């Protein structure tokens, strides 16, 4: 099983599309409704970050089979200004946009694995994974 969806993000409608596509794929992978919602919420936060800080970018969601487990891999990429202090951006309540500052740290709490690569002028790539609880 390998499937992928790609959603360009350049307006608020794309945030809704990105999280809906992610939810559909998570449903296909057999995630519970609770986990589908968790994945959709995490996608919504990182897609909004793209729009807010980089204006445009993309979110891909891929089904992943790894030996004994099934999951989804979400990758959000942009060529925006990048983040100068990644550690700080991952702190609850820290925001340079007047938002709640819960986007990145919240998404990290929602997912099982979370990685962020960013540097000023280099854009930002966030990779998040969620694994299905084995039955």
């Amino acid at each position, binding site marked *: 099983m390998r499937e992928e969806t790609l959603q360009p993000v350049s307006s608020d409608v794309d945030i*809704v599309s990105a999280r809906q596509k992610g*939810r559909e794929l998570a449903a296909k992978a057999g995630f519970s409704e609770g986990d589908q919602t968790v994945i959709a919420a995490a996608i919504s*936060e990182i897609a*909004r970050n793209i729009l807010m800080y980089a204006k445009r970018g993309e979110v891909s969601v891929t089904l992943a089979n790894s030996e004994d487990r099934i999951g989804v891999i979400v990758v959000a990429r942009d060529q925006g200004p990048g983040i100068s202090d990644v550690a700080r951006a991952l702190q609850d309540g820290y925001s340079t946009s007047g938002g*709640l500052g*819960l986007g990145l740290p919240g998404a990290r709490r*929602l997912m099982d694995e979370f990685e962020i690569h960013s540097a000023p002028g280099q854009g930002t790539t966030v990779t998040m994974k969620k694994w299905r609880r084995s039955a």
Partner: protein
Amino acid sequence: MEVPILKQGHFLIASIQSALTDADLSQLREALVLRVGKLRARGVIVDVTALDVMDSFAVRTLRDIAHMTRLRGAETVIVGIQPEVAFAMVQLGLTLKGVATALDLEEGLAFLDRFTKERFERA
């Protein structure tokens, strides 16, 4: 998509029908703050039963609606937060502190009835 706002007695009921964009949510906030005055409403119910996810922007906007309408003299209650949505909200760190919530429309109306009775009939 614009959220329909109905008037029932002294209350406004905004019943969200489908997924909303950030712009839709902001539009709902402006509409409710205006209509509380125009229709002299004492209470507002925002029914979010149809929302399958609430992220930080949605929660912030709902909180703003509650605080802004309160400044205009009307109490807001959010009804219909689904169990999975509540679970994800708490993990995200989103709380709706200081905002009334109720299980569903019926409970929301009962809450507003009690609340406004106390406030307006004692005076």
